[in-house]
């Protein structure tokens, strides 16, 4: 491996990190530059990867004699009619294709994983453990929190009062879950920042830090002068 290329690479990466983090102070010209670079590079990468995937999935079999692949290719091209005013409505045909399959997959995936698995998981819990009774209460309360049409404001019936108390309990469970999720995510987020800060603070990138600080200070002084 070429040492020079590695070093230059580390310097480029360091500069990129500083440019993005400069946003934390305020949105600025350096960030804007990095933002444009990132969008250009990443979207270009998506184009290259997608092209390769479509080529292998559709064009290669088509050339190999599987004529049927002409259909998705044509459907894909119809999408571009969106840009022609006169025929723009035709984009709905491929879109309907996507939505149809997507909705079907969503229904079956959601019912099995989100509904039945949760019911089975709960019923199978060990109810000699008192904590699981609390969990059952929490599940019922938070499910009923999402009832929208029962016990409207006008009604003061017995059920209505019961439901409003119960959904308050549900909200408390929701808040506990939000807090727990929040707290649990913190460590993963720190790790990702640690990775970038770490490579920024190892040579050769670390030499860019004083330069960046110097530029920042000069900028602050310049701005103060300009305002006074």
């Amino acid at each position: 491996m070429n040492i020079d290329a590695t070093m230059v690479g580390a310097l480029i990466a360091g500069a990129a990190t500083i440019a993005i983090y400069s946003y934390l102070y305020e949105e600025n010209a350096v960030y804007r530059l990095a933002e444009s670079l990132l969008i250009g590079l990443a979207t270009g990468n998506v184009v290259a990867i997608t092209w390769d995937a479509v080529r292998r999935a559709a064009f290669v079999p088509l050339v190999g004699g599987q004529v049927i692949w002409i259909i998705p290719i044509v459907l894909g091209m119809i999408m571009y009619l969106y840009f022609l005013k006169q025929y723009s409505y035709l984009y709905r045909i491929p879109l309907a294709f996507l939505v149809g399959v997507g909705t079907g997959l969503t229904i079956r995936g959601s019912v099995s994983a989100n509904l039945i698995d949760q019911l089975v998981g709960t019923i199978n819990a060990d109810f000699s453990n008192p904590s699981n009774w609390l969990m059952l209460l929490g599940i019922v309360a938070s499910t009923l929190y999402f009832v929208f049409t029962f016990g409207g404001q006008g009604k003061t019936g017995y059920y209505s009062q019961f439901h409003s108390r119960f959904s308050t309990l549900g909200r408390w469970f929701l808040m506990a879950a939000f807090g727990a999720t929040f707290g649990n995510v913190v460590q993963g987020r720190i790790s990702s920042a640690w990775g970038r800060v770490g490579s920024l603070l190892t040579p050769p990138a670390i030499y860019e830090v004083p330069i960046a600080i110097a530029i920042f200070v000069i900028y602050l002084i310049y701005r103060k002068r300009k305002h006074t």
Partner: protein
Amino acid sequence: MKFDSRWIYVAVFLTIGIPILAPIGLPVLITPTTRGMFDAIQNLPSGSIMYLGIDFLAVSQPELLPMSTAVYKQAISRPISIVMACFSTTDCPLFTQRIIQQIGYGSKKYGEDIVFLGYFPGLETPIAAFAKDVRSVVSVDAFGTPISQLALMNRVKSAADFNLWVVMTSGDYVPYLRQVQSPYHIKMAFGTSSPEYPTGLVYYQSGQIVGLLNGLRGAAEYELLIHSPGSAAGGMDAQSVTQLFIIVAVIGANALYFSRRKKK
């Protein structure tokens, strides 16, 4: 009065950065799940075949790269054969190649003791096919050599030929459980990023996996176990100091909030 969040950013930068420059070396206790993976690799009898998937997204690099490096180092030091492949994203093969470039093959000979088969897009479908019949998915390795010319691959026909299956991934490990572990009952262990760890524990407790690494912390523990301190150990200091700072700052903000409210 609105507090300027930027002071918090500075503090977070310092709590992450200072332990990197001046490691405190807070003690890292080895969790059983980490030792589980270490022991599984360490106790593989000579001549065993291990699958190693270095299979994560680029954004998970800070946690997963040190972890994968440590596991790779341990694996090449053992008298076993290693088959590597990727199924998750286009980033994966690049990371595997990077680790190979940096560490090399140790005393192993490519083709006889270790192979890298490359990347197969589609996750679950190719995993299932690979497990059933390796040759239905793979015809050449990552470097374009036909696998018929690789001595090691003559011993690998399906998932049943593996003694241990290790995947370092940022999330999608369930397909391996579904397609490899449950049908073939292969010993399995995962390295994951920290948000996935709590659920991974469910599979550890149920005995479906023998080891599980918890993000940066798991990586730091592993570096300790293989006696090769790397970047992750320092990361744990940053982790502890920063989280402690956040907790203290939250408590401080609450105290301030209440003292202000009392005055009014």
